[in-house]
């Protein structure tokens, strides 16, 4: 059979138009993911704050009490604040990917029974993780206020804070691109999900989440700077604490990578989407 099958639909429009038409579904799935995650749990949404807080305490204990590494680093802010600003965006990134990777397989009964753009699953995973991120971010205000008042460290707000949504936007684009790629890969090979946990863990230590990374010319430093998450997390700290808008080439390069990953992820996802129901 040489003719390729085709489906004509009068709805028309491109990928983005279709996604916009299904925004209600996306909203619904984000809400569903949030509801399901916190259903039958006593503390509910408080977990969104408790988890990064717990991580912050753990790393503060490890790096300042157990082995004092940060003492010699001369951080421009108390270590807990440093760690929290790193951990919250990282938790958003990591939990987006961890949820997205299984999102299509988990929703088999939707994928094989109803039609709609399949992107909504990984995107909804990113969306629900974003909700957690925003809640956890609010706590940062309290944390900064505490250190401002209780210690001799002072916080100065600046106009650079207005740049935060831009950083977040590029982080979201990068996350969405990877989420789509991973969800798709996992559909064909379930191994992806197994590998991802370890990979994300490794990735975290190649990113300046709990300690600063300098581009010191060693291969580890170079590797860390090639990783787009490093400039992004550094940019959060620069904006909030130093009050400077990121100007480094590395940051804008990371933004370019984020856009490229997002477009490539989306494009390849859509190309393969019609086979999902068969291969799942």
């Amino acid at each position: 059979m040489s003719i390729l099958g085709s489906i004509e639909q009068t709805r028309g429009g491109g990928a983005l138009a279709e996604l916009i038409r299904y925004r209600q579904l996306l909203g619904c799935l984000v809400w569903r993911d949030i509801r399901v995650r916190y259903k039958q749990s006593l503390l509910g949404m408080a977990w969104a704050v408790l988890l990064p807080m717990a991580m912050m305490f753990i790393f503060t204990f490890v790096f300042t009490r157990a082995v004092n590494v940060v003492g010699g680093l001369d951080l421009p802010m108390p270590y807990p604040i440093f760690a929290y600003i790193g951990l919250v965006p990282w938790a958003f990134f990591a939990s987006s990917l961890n949820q997205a990777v299984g999102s299509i397989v988990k929703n088999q009964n939707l994928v094989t029974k109803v039609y709609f753009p399949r992107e909504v699953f990984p995107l909804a995973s990113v969306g629900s993780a974003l909700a957690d991120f925003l809640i956890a971010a609010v706590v940062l205000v309290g944390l900064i206020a505490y250190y401002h008042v209780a210690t001799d460290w002072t916080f100065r707000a600046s106009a650079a804070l207005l740049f935060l949504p831009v950083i977040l936007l590029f982080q979201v684009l990068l996350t969405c691109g990877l989420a789509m790629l991973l969800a798709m890969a996992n559909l064909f090979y379930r191994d992806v999900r197994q590998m991802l946990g370890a990979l994300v863990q490794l990735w975290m230590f190649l990113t300046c989440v709990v300690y600063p990374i300098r581009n010191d010319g060693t291969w580890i430093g170079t590797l860390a700077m090639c990783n787009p998450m490093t400039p992004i997390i550094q940019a959060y700290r620069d904006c909030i604490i130093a009050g400077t808008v990121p100007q480094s080439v590395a940051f804008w390069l990371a933004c370019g990578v984020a856009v490229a990953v997002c477009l490539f992820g989306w494009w390849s996802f859509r190309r393969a989407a019609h086979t999902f129901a068969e291969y799942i």
Partner: protein
Amino acid sequence: MDPAVRFEGVSKRFRRGELHDSLRALIAGGLRRLAGGGARRPRREAFWALSDVSFSAARGEALGIIGPNGAGKSTALKLLAGILRPDGGTIAIQGRLAALIEVGAGMHGDLTGLENIYLSGAVVGMSRREIREKLADIVAFSGLEKFLDTPVKRYSTGMQARLGFSTAAFVNPDILLVDEVLSVGDAVFRHRCEQRMSELVRGGTTLIFVTHNLEQMRKVCDRALVLDKGTCSYLGKPAEAVAHYLRATMHAEGGVGYADQPADGSAAAEVLDLTYAAADGDAAELDCTRADEPVVVHVTVRVHQRVTRLAVQVALRHMGGELFISMNSQQRDVLYDLAPGVHRIPLRLPALPLASGSYFAQVRLWDAEHCRLVCETPYRYPLQVEDGGQGTGMLALPHHWGNAIAVDGGASAPVDRPTQLVGSAD
């Protein structure tokens, strides 16, 4: 105007066996290929779930799809819904499409009934506001008011089907696809669903209905498509489609029920065939008859050794299983005395006053002398009956309604018989 649904020469291929390998096999295979050694793994046999199927459905038309298991019915629906992509041919859809492909599809067990209504609405592309407007109708139709805040995982299958159908039926789709989902609902709900589907069709919705419930299909649909092994074997009137389908199935599966017709020819006589015709002689065979018209049942038997005093019994069962009538020639004092060879025995019925439906006949041959069963066939000879709107139930008796007569002394104006209403019920 373009039809709402157009299916043109559509083919869909699947591969047999496990679809994907593990990553390990992939890597190992890739390395082997790189090394240049070893043959490529054998290509899996392709299997055409649908090949070159064409049909279309206009706005406001109800098309039924029937066929045995594995005929490609669900594949056709999934292609229409856009879940699968065809390997050949063209599918064109005009308008908003809602699909009910399986019970509980598109529902999430952890969410409540109400949340799931919103979710299913969003899946077909409705806005929250639209759903809110329809909510009262959906809830009333489903009859699940008391369970709306219960998670769907605690629902029974029937309740899930109710929720799913109610939502799909009230999103006012331009095209509604319904797969075998109503069978789990109870009788009352099934009836309501039939009514709602007819209502939607009258309102301009195109209905594509896949079912094994042939009676339900006949009631709801205007046309029917019979699929068999991925090809279209019949497209036309529902009653004829059912006849076609049943005949093909009976042929392939050997009929309904068990029979002990000795196949080795040891019996003195065997039944070769049973056919229906409108009249004696060489009248054409019938698949389908009207309840008020005469039918002649022809039983063809092959006699191996001369038989004397052979009684013939024909029994007719409804597809649902009820025995409607059993006619034995002995009771009419007719016994056959037949020489070896093939004989055709007619059984004349002035009418077959049965409700619309599918019926099956069975033949038994008795040795009246020794009261012994000679040969028996399964219920394998289908006949469709159309009652022409004589009423619902099991029988289609001719009947007439008279004028009302005042019995309390008051005047009773003679009423013109409202002929346009007679027979319009159902």
